[in-house]
């Protein structure tokens, strides 16, 4: 039995699968899909997964203000985190600053946030960017907010684990500092991914399809997860799930 699903639901389901079995997942600002994925993984964990979501009051175990997420990561108490990028290159360098010559960039993004730190310290950093175009996935970023890999003398227990876009999933090979295409989302093709990816990456002979969410997963997403994510991301929940639980 296959159910129809929305792209956001596939992404939430795909990312949640990467979080199963972990102890503590943290979510930064402006991240409704990673947030939804973490809440889904928590719903499936029987309560063993902790979720700390920036901007949330319900899903936030922190009591020490803005420093605690970073301190907690340095203590080794955060297993997974999400980063995006206005640009992401083939070595998993991410650019959250801007396109063009710094500082007077012709396109300006919000800024690096905690990327230059959490990318080093959180073991499983999942890169997530819905837009999958040569404009975003570039050969080399214009500004390295945070590097994908580091020299051996740099203290770096953390780093990139996968890159999830609106078209596919890439794994990251730290030793080679290269992405490898893992699966293509339903409705998309390997050729399309190749066309739309600006960086060079490994491509196995056979690339599978990203698994569609199971019916019970969709039910969880549309029920409990939609309700829970609406607290922090009301506009997202209203648009995707028609959820207006948190409307003022």
């Amino acid at each position, binding site marked *: 039995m296959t159910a129809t699903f929305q792209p956001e639901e596939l992404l939430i389901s795909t990312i949640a699968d990467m979080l199963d079995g972990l102890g503590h997942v943290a979510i930064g600002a*402006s991240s409704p899909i990673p947030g939804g994925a973490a809440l889904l993984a928590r719903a499936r964990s029987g309560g063993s997964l902790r979720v700390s979501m920036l901007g949330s009051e319900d899903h936030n175990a922190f009591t020490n203000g803005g*420093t605690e997420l970073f301190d907690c990561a340095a203590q080794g108490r955060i297993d997974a985190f999400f980063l995006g990028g206005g640009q992401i290159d083939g070595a998993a360098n991410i650019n959250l600053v801007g396109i063009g010559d710094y500082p007077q*960039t*012709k396109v300006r*993004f919000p*800024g690096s*946030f905690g990327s230059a730190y959490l990318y080093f310290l959180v073991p499983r950093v999942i890169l997530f960017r819905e837009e999958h175009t040569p404009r975003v996935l570039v050969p080399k970023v214009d500004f390295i907010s*945070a590097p994908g890999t580091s020299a051996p003398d740099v203290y770096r227990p953390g780093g990139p684990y996968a890159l999830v876009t609106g078209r596919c999933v890439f794994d990251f090979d730290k030793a080679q500092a290269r992405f490898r295409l893992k699966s293509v989302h339903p409705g998309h093709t390997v050729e399309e991914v190749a066309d739309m990816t600006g960086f060079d990456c490994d491509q196995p002979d056979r690339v599978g399809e990203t698994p569609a969410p199971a019916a019970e997963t969709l039910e969880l997403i549309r029920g409990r997860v939609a309700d829970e994510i609406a607290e922090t991301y009301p506009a997202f929940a209203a648009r995707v799930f028609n959820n207006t639980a948190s409307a003022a």
Partner: protein
Amino acid sequence: MLDDIDALAARVPDGAKVALPPDYSGCAMAAVRALIKRGVRDLHLIGVPSVGFQGDMLIGAGCVATLETAAVTIGEYGLAPCFTRAIKAGTIKMIDGTCPAIHAGLQAAEKGIPFMPVRGIVGSDLLEQRDDWMVGNDPFGDDQGPLVLVKAITPDVTLIHAPLADRHGNAWIGVRREMMVMAHAAKTTLVTFDKLYDGDLLADAEMAAGTIPALYIGGLTQVENGAWPVGLFGAYPADDTHLRAYMEMARTEEGFQAYVNANVLDRKAAE
């Protein structure tokens, strides 16, 4: 206790280094409007660790010379329009940072030490832009590689909005303790607050745990709904309709000016 929001705004001199919290913390938006109305100039804003509508409005109104922050973000609403324009035009000096380094700089000031070590960062292009960050080593030689040493950040003023304050001049911020560090680190802290707490916040063990003592606070004034149109944790959500209207108007300089005329100059500062 100060008479009104204009008396509070008068305590922020031109050129001051002003620390501001992000939109999900305690934003003194009414004070920001009062600052724009007064025509404050040459501010050095510090987003702790990021800044949102407060920063965008102050930049749009020409109040800002320097912006030091890990990000300018207005969340789901899109890119900050006045900030984006200012970067393109090169009209503000930008000091890009990363969240834990900004927190570390403030914690160094809080502790009266000249710098604080921070993990990560090495290999980021951010490092090349900063003369107040240096690469150093662990003096105990545990061989975990280079560290970034972040210079202390001492704001002249921390400007925040709190849900509660009392007649003794204490302000309650609950778990939003970045504002506590900001208050400790700054030379002085100015506070607007929603409701007067009838009693002594420090005398109640439960309230005291989330209270900035008067010791650090140089001026307070009550402004109900003082974080509007941004939300206030535990108190009220953002005014979505208003913020969308802001985003629409602020797409152009003229539109932003019209927004300021309608919402800052032509109205009493306290809505």
